[in-house]
């Protein structure tokens, strides 16, 4: 599955593409990005119930479809293309994957089915004001008294954090450092002492929140003090998902740039007939195809259980991040003045590219991870 898709997978992609082009045209994207929770309930219901997308990689035992990251990657690539406004990445990718990686059997049985059905929207609150998605960066503390835990600290850049119905939060034992003493907790959004603030995001199609915890009661998810390794795995899986989402966005930008260059006439000919523009289009194709190859490979490597898949996850994230931003810059440029306007759709993807570039760690960070993990 690293180098090609099966017929079923291609069929699946086509169905999604049709659905999303009907239900997530940019008029809808523009409408939803102005709202606080940035999601159309009716479209969300179809995404969850009719298409079953919220459970794609959740095992059947927990109410999902039981596919792997390859299929999840297809979904994300198509959503990235269409800039679907929905809490999909927060709930299915971040929260469900975390629960799968750390939850006890009993927790998985209770928590995952509603997420798979789309009835519960969950999110993962990991990064703090320092903007790090690694356990060492966690400062929020969890104090225990008997079976009860109480969280204090701040989380930021939480995807759909202001609207999610369930929060999975990362905190550490007081006094612990590094990967030691890190645990995951379930927090109810209306728990006492929790304040959720919607942040103004660069990419208004992706809602972010800052959460302040002031002695908030929480339930332990999985084993106490042992979350660092499974969280790192979750982040690698999420990086693969994000890479696939990004190549979807980069691809449609590339297509729109080429399409415009054929329509736009200057000096008595289509601007796409100028070699400068042809070369730019060819460069974009090259960069986007390279990033796609990496995103698909990483998803395949994960599903096939290759030892080196985490290194490939970082490779794919960095590659897609650079290619997406570059495609966005080229696309504005190829449109000329029109490309710089609000009414032209390019900036919607440009802003998604900018925020995806740093979400879950920027390219330099992932290249460093990749080097650390590169097989001997």
């Amino acid at each position: 599955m690293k180098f090609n898709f099966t017929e079923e997978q291609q069929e699946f992609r086509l169905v999604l593409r049709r659905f999303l082009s009907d239900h997530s045209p940019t008029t809808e994207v523009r409408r939803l990005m102005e709202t606080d929770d940035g999601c159309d309930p009716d479209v969300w219901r179809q995404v969850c119930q009719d298409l079953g997308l919220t459970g794609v990689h959740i095992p059947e035992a927990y109410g999902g479809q039981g596919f792997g990251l390859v299929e999840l990657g297809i979904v994300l690539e198509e959503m990235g293309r269409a800039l679907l406004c929905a809490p999909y990445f927060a709930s299915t990718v971040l929260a469900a994957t975390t629960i799968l990686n750390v939850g006890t059997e009993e927790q998985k049985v209770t928590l995952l089915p509603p997420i798979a059905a789309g009835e519960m929207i969950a999110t993962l609150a990991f990064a703090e004001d320092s903007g790090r998605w690694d356990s060492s960066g966690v400062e929020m503390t969890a104090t225990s008294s008997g079976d009860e835990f109480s969280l204090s600290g701040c989380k930021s850049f939480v995807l759909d954090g202001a609207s999610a119905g369930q929060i999975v939060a990362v905190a550490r034992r007081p006094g612990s450092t590094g990967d030691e003493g890190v645990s995951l907790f379930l927090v109810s959004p209306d728990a006492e002492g929790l304040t959720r603030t919607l942040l103004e995001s660069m990419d208004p199609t992706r809602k972010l929140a800052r959460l302040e915890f002031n002695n908030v009661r929480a339930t332990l998810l999985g084993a106490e003090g042992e979350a660092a390794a499974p969280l790192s795995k979750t982040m690698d899986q999420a990086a693969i998902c994000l890479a696939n989402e990004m190549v979807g966005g980069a691809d449609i930008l590339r297509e729109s740039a080429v399409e415009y260059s054929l329509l736009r006439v200057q000096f008595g000919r289509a601007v796409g007939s100028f070699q400068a523009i042809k070369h730019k289009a060819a460069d974009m194709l090259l960069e986007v195809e390279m990033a796609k190859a990496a995103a698909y490979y990483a998803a395949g490597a994960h599903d096939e259980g290759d030892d080196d898949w985490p290194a490939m996850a970082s490779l794919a994230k960095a590659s897609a991040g650079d290619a997406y931003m570059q495609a966005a810059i080229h696309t504005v440029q190829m449109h000329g003045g029109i490309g710089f306007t609000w009414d032209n759709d390019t900036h919607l993807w440009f802003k998604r590219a900018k925020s995806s570039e740093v979400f879950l760690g920027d390219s330099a960070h992932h290249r460093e991870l990749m080097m650390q993990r590169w097989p001997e």
Partner: protein
Amino acid sequence: MSDPTEESVRSEARAWLEANWSPDLGLVEWRHKLADSGWGVPTWPTDWYGKGYSDPLGRVIEEEFDRIGAVSVARTGIRNLAAATLLEHGTKMQKEKFLLRILTGEDTWCQLFSEPGSGSDLAGASTRADKKGNKWIINGQKVWTTSAHHAQYGLLLARTDWDVPKHKGLSYFILDIEQPGVEVQPLRQMNGHASFNQVFFTDAVIEPEFQVSELGDGWKVATTTLMNERRGADGLRRYAKATEKPGRAYAEEAEEIAHQLEPYKWYPQRAGRVDLVLQRARETGKINDPAIRQEIAKLLTMSKSTEWTARRARAAADLGLPQGPEGSIGKLAASNVARKAALVHTMLSGADAMLTGENSTMGGVIAEIFVSTPATSIAGGTDEIQKNIISERVLKLPKEARTDTDRPFRDVPRNIVT
């Protein structure tokens, strides 16, 4: 009288400023003094508010203004381009009517060149100017017109002859924006500002004496405007900054910056804000990250070399040497700096680059860099057009075969304007 030297000019300017400058003067009143005395635009000809000094002497005088804190003549925005164009091509009447009010800042100007159908291909303009009686009647549409929403006058490129090749059928006019036949509609940009506009003409009227240069000379005159625009985009651009010092002239200047210059408030961000990079690197602690240090060093190298290239061009011009390639590459280099700066600011910001608005880093300034730098490689002629100019006019490489210049303009394929 002996030739002015740096020392003589410096002491003369200093003495004049000490005797005349006061922050308590009204802004317009002060600028009138500047225009009358020649100290406001000393490099302009003596007949027109200047002293005919060389550029280096002009810079000495600027230093004296900075030293004493005196407000200068109005010189930001398109009015600069209007002044340069009129000084070179305008009639005596046009210079008398417009130059002084440009210097005092009483009139704001805009550049009515680009159209929906013609941007890079400016000579493909299809806004029409038809003679009716002795007046010109204008119909058509312009776009991306910065400041049109509060300009009094526009520099207009319009077609007066459709039966000759495109460059030959254009004429250049001064258009009074504040008339019934002109409608200005703001256009919002991807950074949320609306500093440019669409401008529609329906039988707008221009008096015959507001034609600049001869009929059919429009392209030649527009070239003067564009050369000045591109020269100004070489990385040495200074942006007007309000001061909080007490005094009527300062307050009125601050008012001017807040209102007339409002469309330009994101322009420093569009250039990439290299000036903020080291400060941000220290604040974020990333100054010690070897990977980021390399990128910052590359950016500073680009930015400094761009500045020095522009200074070499100026130094050569000061010595009266012919322009070398340094002159043409400034705008292109500035685009590269802007793009690289956006990348470095992203690395410095990390996850904070996901945020925007007043509560984000530096009150939104950093976010504004990300969504404004793409304008640098488009406004005033795209990077691709700059490269064509450099390769064909500077390097003298063969021109692309053209099919749009060898026939009457009406037969050239073009966009359908809707």
